[in-house]
């Protein structure tokens, strides 16, 4: 069994992924899976993989004692700032509460899908990184900390290995917060994980390039983390309007920058490129329901993503303010967030106390608007068009962290005769395994870890939900009303060959509604585009 102090070990790898929880047949055949990506020796020489053999960040270990000293000093400087009101007024209180009140009772550990999937690997225990971080804070931040740490037997050597492993470990948690639900004290390991990420990003400039350089920085520069500027997104959406006409015969022109509209719809812009059927479905539904709506071509006004939520308060605040400014400028009655979980939470919850006065434009979930439309009878719906097995994935950010549980279920119960729940579901759901940025992170060999460990419990859940109809001949649908989760399902299903072995397709909620619309002659869901 690994000890907490082992994180400082100067040599070797802390653990190796090998004792994974078994998947049901035919997914238990390891030989059917793609080979794990072998990192080249020159890459292994350059980057740190000493946590578990995987790398999310491509972090280089300091090469000289001077570099190591500097690395440690920068961390300690960041630690001081993380625990100061001026630098961390945003989360200082919950951070301190979680640092000070853990009873180390381990009640939370079984709630973690990653720890469970890994076969209870100590390194993935949700309290492991929290305890390392807590001990570092106690030892190196508090007065008399070193002597007390020694006395208590809680001292940890602070070296480059400790820090590299701690940071990598912060990217082995999807911030799903199931462990926080289980804690009798209200301690939140996911918050501590996020604060560790934040320290490294905001003080040391270290974050995964997918969520910083190619994510929030790109969004602030161009307007979207996809890199689409306003002109590109308008061109792409105009193309989708044409697609709607070709597929359904409906003539729709997506409204842009319409002042005074009731609804400013902000999608995750990734939908436009990766799952265009989702924004198309929204356009069809809103037009058919007679909603006064618009999209914004202002910077960040057409992309609901806010990756700062996962790792950096400065980036978070900048994007949240840009999105609110776009809504204020158009004088809309409300912002409606499309099917993007973290976009929901970032805008409606975490940014709430950042946006005051006329910047606090009311914000609502698209699931609620869709529920109102479907239940109002404004659309002619034929549930027999959705007469195939459907299950629902609950995105953590919308459900566990926002309590939006029933609207999507009301819709599915009305339009999907074979709807069935996963176990567990609702606020107790398992994360898809792509949360907190993982769905867009595939650098080095991280994708292998994401598929084999992070997404494992979710895959088991999905297969169990369809256990009564396992044959690939029976087409089945996982409704995932979140772009990030869909990104994870796309990659996870491909990795395990889920379409070929089980005939399971994933997609959004709006697509199921349009598929049930009696006025549209052709089926909207295209099974062949799995």
């Amino acid at each position, binding site marked *: *069994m*690994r*000890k907490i102090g082992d994180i400082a070990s100067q040599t070797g790898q802390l653990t190796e992924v090998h004792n994974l929880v078994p998947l049901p047949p035919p997914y238990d055949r390891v030989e059917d899976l793609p080979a794990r990506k072998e990192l080249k020796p020159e890459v292994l020489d350059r980057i740190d993989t000493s946590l578990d053999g995987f790398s999310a960040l491509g972090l280089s270990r300091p090469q000289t004692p001077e570099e190591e000293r500097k690395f440690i000093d*920068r961390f300690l400087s960041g630690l001081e700032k993380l625990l100061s009101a*001026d*630098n961390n*007024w945003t*989360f*200082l*209180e*919950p951070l*301190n*509460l*979680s640092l*000070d*009140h853990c*009873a*180390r*009772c*381990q*009640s*939370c*550990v*079984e*709630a973690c899908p990653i720890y469970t999937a890994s076969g209870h690997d100590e390194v993935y225990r949700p*309290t492991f990184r929290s305890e390392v971080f807590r001990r570092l804070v106690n030892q190196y931040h508090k007065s008399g900390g070193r002597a007390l740490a020694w006395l*208590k037997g*809680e001292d940890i050597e602070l070296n480059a290995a400790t820090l590299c492993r701690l940071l990598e470990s912060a990217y082995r948690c999807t911030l799903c917060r199931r462990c926080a639900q289980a*804690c*009798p*004290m*209200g301690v939140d390991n996911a918050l501590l994980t996020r604060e560790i990420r934040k320290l490294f990003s*905001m*003080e*040391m*400039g*270290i*974050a995964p390039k997918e969520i*910083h*350089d190619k994510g*929030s920085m790109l969004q602030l520069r161009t307007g979207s983390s996809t890199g689409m500027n306003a002109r590109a997104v308008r061109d792409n959406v105009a193309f989708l309007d044409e697609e709607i006409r070709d597929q359904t015969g409906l003539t729709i022109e997506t409204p842009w920058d319409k002042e005074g509209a009731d609804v400013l719809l902000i999608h995750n812009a990734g939908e436009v490129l990766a799952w265009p059927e989702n924004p198309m479905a929204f356009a069809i539904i809103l037009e058919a329901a007679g909603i006064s709506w618009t999209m914004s071509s202002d910077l960040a006004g057409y992309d609901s993503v806010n990756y700062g939520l996962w790792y950096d308060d*400065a980036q978070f*605040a*900048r994007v949240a*303010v840009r999105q609110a400014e776009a809504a204020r400028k158009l004088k809309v009655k409300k912002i409606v967030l499309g099917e993007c979980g973290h976009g929901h939470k970032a805008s409606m*919850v975490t940014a*709430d106390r950042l946006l*005051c006065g006329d910047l606090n434009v*009311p914000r*609502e*979930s698209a699931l609620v608007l869709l529920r109102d439309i479907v239940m109002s009878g404004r659309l002619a719906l034929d549930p027999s068009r959705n007469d195939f097995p459907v299950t629902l994935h609950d995105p953590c950010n919308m*459900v*566990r*962290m926002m*309590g*939006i*549980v*029933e*609207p999507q279920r009301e819709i599915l119960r009305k339009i999907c005769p074979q709807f069935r729940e996963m176990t567990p579901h*609702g606020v107790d759901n398992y994360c898809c395994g792509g949360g907190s940025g993982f769905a867009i992170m595939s650098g080095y060999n991280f994708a292998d870890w994401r598929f084999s460990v992070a997404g494992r419990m979710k895959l088991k859940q999905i297969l169990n939900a369809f256990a009564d109809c396992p044959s690939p001949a029976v087409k089945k649908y996982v409704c995932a009303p979140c772009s990030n989760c869909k990104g994870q399902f796309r990659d996870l299903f491909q990795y395990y060959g889920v379409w070929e072995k089980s005939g399971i397709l994933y997609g959004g909620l709006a697509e199921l509604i349009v598929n049930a619309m009696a006025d549209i002659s052709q089926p909207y869901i295209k099974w062949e585009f799995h």
Partner: protein
Amino acid sequence: MLLIILISVAVIVFFAGNAVRIVHFLRMPTPLRWELYPIPKGPRARQRYGGSYFEQSDWWTKSPDTGRTGELAFMAKEVFLLRSVWENFRGLWLWSWLLHWGLYFYLLTTVLAVLAAVLRAGSFRLLHLAVLYGFPLACSLGVAGSLGLLVMRSLHPRLRGYTTRSSVFNLTLLGAVFVTGLLSLSDGAGLDGLVRVLLRSPASLGHYGKISQAHLALVAFFLAYFPFTHMTHAYMKYFTWHGVRWNDSPAIHDPRAAKRLAASLQREATWAAAHIAAGGPVKWSEVASDPGGRGAGRA
């Protein structure tokens, strides 16, 4: 005399230490929201599945959710039944429950003994009986709980790696308090006797046996030690649960939100990463309004 001084100092440290801790948290800046469902507020039907006000269209036009009763009921289950431990770590529950109830009974009987002494209620037989039987019960539960937890912490694979000297020390201290409490009964004083002497004629404490004195010394040490440990979770749950986990109050319904935000935005950030304040301190209002970040380069 030394014991009297020790007890007096311990009581002062206990109250001052806890007060400082509470004030420290009360004075922290209002953080961003970080709630977690289920939250025991709002209509009961919605609470059952963990729903929130966000499920309503135009939620900002509706009355905000309230739910002191729901929160209190939830907290009562947590405090008296250790609901989360029962649901998530059944093997630990019994020992933890015994220890907690030992502490609750100890606190209760002490309060009753103080009442009896202050009211000079020697003739209140019920009060006397409650203390007479409550104190040994408290100590018995506490001994069983702390011993059980010590064994669990030493042997159970889920706990062993997270059991440090301080965990062992805390449980041993609690165990010693309860064991000496039980043994002090053989001195013939009983809790009400000890409390009466402490309050009315402390100078005569020396007449009591060594075990009773040891018990009081241990209690004094525990009181002084308590505010500096994680055991303050006893009351800090108010902050972790009510203040953070259940705090889903929207800013739109909070008239003081703008003032608090304005104060926070005036704070100076000194984060050294290139995209924040590498060039020197910068106000949070400037951080948030800086559209491109300060340079794209990463260290």
